[in-house]
């Protein structure tokens, strides 16, 4: 079965004069968990709503299992959706909420009861089935919404920031549970979230949406290591990637990179990957690729001055003024620094990322 379960073909969507989506194409293979990652307003919800049939695309097509679904009514699509505000039926009990799609499918009562029972056990909501949503806690509401979607076997599931308003620990717990359910039941999920850690934790494949455009579709790790452009690099990762202007100089086949007053030799491998015409670049340094080292200076070591400290337990974020450039870096555990301390810094030239300063695209390998 090579054909993708869901295929979006050059979807665009305008709301009045605002373009919410621009030429979006995406393929979702059967049984996968795809995450749409992007900040608020990037077009994640619009994309899901178009797939669900709640919104019509201005142009482009939605194909499901080889059929053109673009003009099909939502109730004919057999897709389950969890809304970002959950949208439970407030006048119906937990049981009626979960049973509702089965009842609409005219399933016999006994069968409905059996299925609801099963899913309630799985989601641990048996004790609230006879109560109204007003009495549920946030997590319970979440689980009932999940139950209403999971109780049937639709073609696939759309989840719109379903965990966003839960508190941190509960979010992680449900996230793990969701992933387990998806694997165990072999279902297909399209999951929207603005939280890159959630995206990386859940996804087989992440699709980064920024300003209504797909910027990158990649495996989670690839997204982090090889972002398609500056914006993706900035959006993925915490502390945020350092992006500083640099200048490339090529002499006798070797390349050197100047950042501020620093001048660093580049590994050959990297130099070959860079377009020859480019001399002005933007350099991306992940915080973990800047290290504080003992003061035995070699060429890649520079002295910096500590100007910010954020101890976070597992690691500490340190702000450093390095030859006039501010960099953030992380060190393990809590370390003894003070503002104004002078430290030796090593830049890992092997892992530098280069961006075209005009287009923002990543260049080189």
């Amino acid at each position, binding site marked *: 079965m090579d054909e993708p379960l869901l295929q979006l073909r050059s979807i665009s969507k305008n709301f009045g004069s605002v373009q919410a989506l621009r030429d979006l194409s995406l393929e979702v293979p059967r049984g996968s968990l795809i995450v749409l990652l992007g900040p608020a307003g990037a077009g994640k919800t619009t994309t899901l709503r178009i797939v669900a049939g709640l919104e019509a695309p201005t142009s482009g097509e939605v194909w499901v299992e080889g059929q053109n679904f673009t003009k099909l009514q939502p109730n004919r699509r057999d897709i389950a959706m969890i809304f970002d505000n959950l949208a439970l039926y*407030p006048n119906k009990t937990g049981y009626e909420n979960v049973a509702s799609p089965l009842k609409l499918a005219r399933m016999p009562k006994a069968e409905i009861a059996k299925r609801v029972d099963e899913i309630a056990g799985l989601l641990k909501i048996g004790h609230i089935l006879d109560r109204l949503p007003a009495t549920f806690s946030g997590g319970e509401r979440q689980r009932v919404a999940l139950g209403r979607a999971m109780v049937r076997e639709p073609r696939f599931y759309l989840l719109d920031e379903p965990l966003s308003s839960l508190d941190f620990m509960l979010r992680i717990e449900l996230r793990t549970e969701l992933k387990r359910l998806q694997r165990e039941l072999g279902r297909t999920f399209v999951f929207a979230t603005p939280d890159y850690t959630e995206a990386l934790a859940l996804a087989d494949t992440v699709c980064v949406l920024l300003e209504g455009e797909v910027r990158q579709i990649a495996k989670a790790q690839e997204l982090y290591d090889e972002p398609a452009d500056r914006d993706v690099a900035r959006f993925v990762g915490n502390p945020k990637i350092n992006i500083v202007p640099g200048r490339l100089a090529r002499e006798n086949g070797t390349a050197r990179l100047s950042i501020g007053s620093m001048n660093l030799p580049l590994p050959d491998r990297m130099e070959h990957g860079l377009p020859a015409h480019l001399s002005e670049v933007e350099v991306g340094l992940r915080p973990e690729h800047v290290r504080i080292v003992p003061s035995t200076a070699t060429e890649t070591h520079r002295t910096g001055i500590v100007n910010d400290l954020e101890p976070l337990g597992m690691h500490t974020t340190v702000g450093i003024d390095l030859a006039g450039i501010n960099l953030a870096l992380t060190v393990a555990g809590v370390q003894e620094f003070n503002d104004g301390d002078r430290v030796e810094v090593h830049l890992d030239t092997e892992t530098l990322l280069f961006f075209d300063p005009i287009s923002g695209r990543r260049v080189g390998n």
Partner: protein
Amino acid sequence: MGARKFGPGSAIGLAFGLLFAVFPLFWMVSTSFKPSNEWVTTPPVWVSENGTVTNYLVILWPSVLLEQRGGLGQYTEEGEVTAQRATESDAVSGAVADFLTKSAWQSIRGSIIISVLSTMLSIVVGFMAAIAIARYRFGGNVTPFFILSGRMFPPIAIAIPFVVMFSAPGIEATDSYWGLILAYAAVTVPFSTWMLKSFIDELPQEIEEAAMMDGMSRWEAHIKVTVPLIKGGLIATSLFIFILNWSEFLFALVLTYTNVETIPVKLSKYFSATSGQQYGIQAALACVSIVPLVIVGFFIQRHLVRGLTLGAIKR
């Protein structure tokens, strides 16, 4: 949390306000039980010592009244006396014209049929319009505004075109129930649309959309999900529209002649050049006319609650 102090100033203010609001009602009820020689006197009779139900009998059971007078004449089963004049000695004496021997039943029946049906029509049309505007952005910003335009003119400016339209050959809707029902629905739809729209706007759209994802068509979602969730709003709006229709006078006056009559029009007929000033009878019919509203209002007040969507969404 300390209760606000209730001083003598507030008490006097409240008492005055209450008097202001209740006095006309009191006067209406009081007058309805007065014999005719006490309707207009100086000094006024506050509460009659010779209380009588004659006024009510005139409008509701004139046959009883006539029986009391010696069973003069013949009357139909509906209580309408045929070819009979009231005598000089009636409590309602003087220039008692034929119509006084006519009961108010025709107008009560007319008011009920017209108000109920036009309210239902207005709510059905208003609900569909409200859904179209609130959920499908029908007409952008233009339709929701101009739907109110019919209310921007003095009612008489609307009433006259109705007379012209309804008199057209082939339509002939004047002096008919359905004519007045249509006219009432037409002028109340702006209200029902706007009121229902505000209730629908309060309901998260995602609840209906969730129902569609669960397998309902758009119509099913709006009828089976939206309607129960705005039940309170539907009832409140219906009551509001019903009151408008129940008390409407101008359209009823110009669009009906003899076949169809409503209570407000009937009330006006007790005060005219030909009938004299039948205050007691008028007051009695006014008292009768508020009874249905009081009863309906009493039974539906518990439905006028808010917060039905509690728990639907996370906040």
